């Protein structure tokens, strides 16, 4: 079981909830793929506040302080 943290509550409920949403009709194949894995217990999604979202480093340019804080969280040590 791998835990994946994600900062979007809506997505997390989609991974758990088998009901069909009209708003998400187009999110089909990927939707079922992820839900199947969650059902099989291979992965689990957890909510994480944006402030602690380590993956932010990988999608945008950040200020010095924020980047420093986040990269420390995944084991990059400056000293």
């Amino acid at each position: 079981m791998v835990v994946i943290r994600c900062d979007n509550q809506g997505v997390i409920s989609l991974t758990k909830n088998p009901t069909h949403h009209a708003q998400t009709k187009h999110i089909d194949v990927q939707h079922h793929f992820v839900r199947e894995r969650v059902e099989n217990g291979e992965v689990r999604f957890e909510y994480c506040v944006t402030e602690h979202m380590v993956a932010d480093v990988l999608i945008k340019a950040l200020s010095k302080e924020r980047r420093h804080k986040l990269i420390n969280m995944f084991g990059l040590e400056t000293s």
Partner: protein
Amino acid sequence: MYVAQVGDVKFFIVVYVDDLILVCNDQNKLLQIKEELSQKFEMKDLGELHFFLGMEVERSRDERLLRINQIKYLKEILKCFRMEECKPIGVLLDPKVKLQRNANGNDESKGFPYQQVVGSLMYAMLYRQPDLAYPISMLSQHMANPNMEHWMAVKQIFRYLQGTLQMKLQFGATPSKEILGYCDADWGGDLEDRRSTTGFVFMIVGGAISWSSKRQPTIALSTTKAEYMANTQGTKEAIWIQN
């Protein structure tokens, strides 16, 4: 890589051309395998792992920590591109600058070794520096037609590296052996075609083991869709790691 398991004893052999790393949780078994291998092949025992493919490995058994650095490799590339005396800077990628396609087709950066530089940095990114993944992915999108702006961004990365030469990727700070992943997406981050970017990182015992920053192949019409696509990528990676 070869893996063997007999009872509680696990054995890993990593081969890269003519270099071998042997890993085993039983010291006696390790010595025995080493003995057997050296009878079959002509080989030299260099003792505990220190240097492999440009990575330097430090191990502190008292603190139960393992650290990977690339000081040697980074110094080499800084020297190679004559940036060894540049002034260090803290900002890796200026949040205000949006790198765009070189639209007017001017070959301003002719003669700059742009491709070589980005390639060398990519190697550093793959082994130790998850923080470089995003800038490198941005810069590699302009490999064919870079302009002055891209070149300045490259130089800024060099200055950042100059300031963070000693940075180490550290494992063992948290005892939990569970794999923990983080997954996120921006939405429409690419100013030209509005495609979003997926970013994920997976960690074990407090250190990053797998990371990626990649532009999504499909345009997402909502943030939820963008995040969902990111989570699909993350799930695929998680399944791969588990197997």
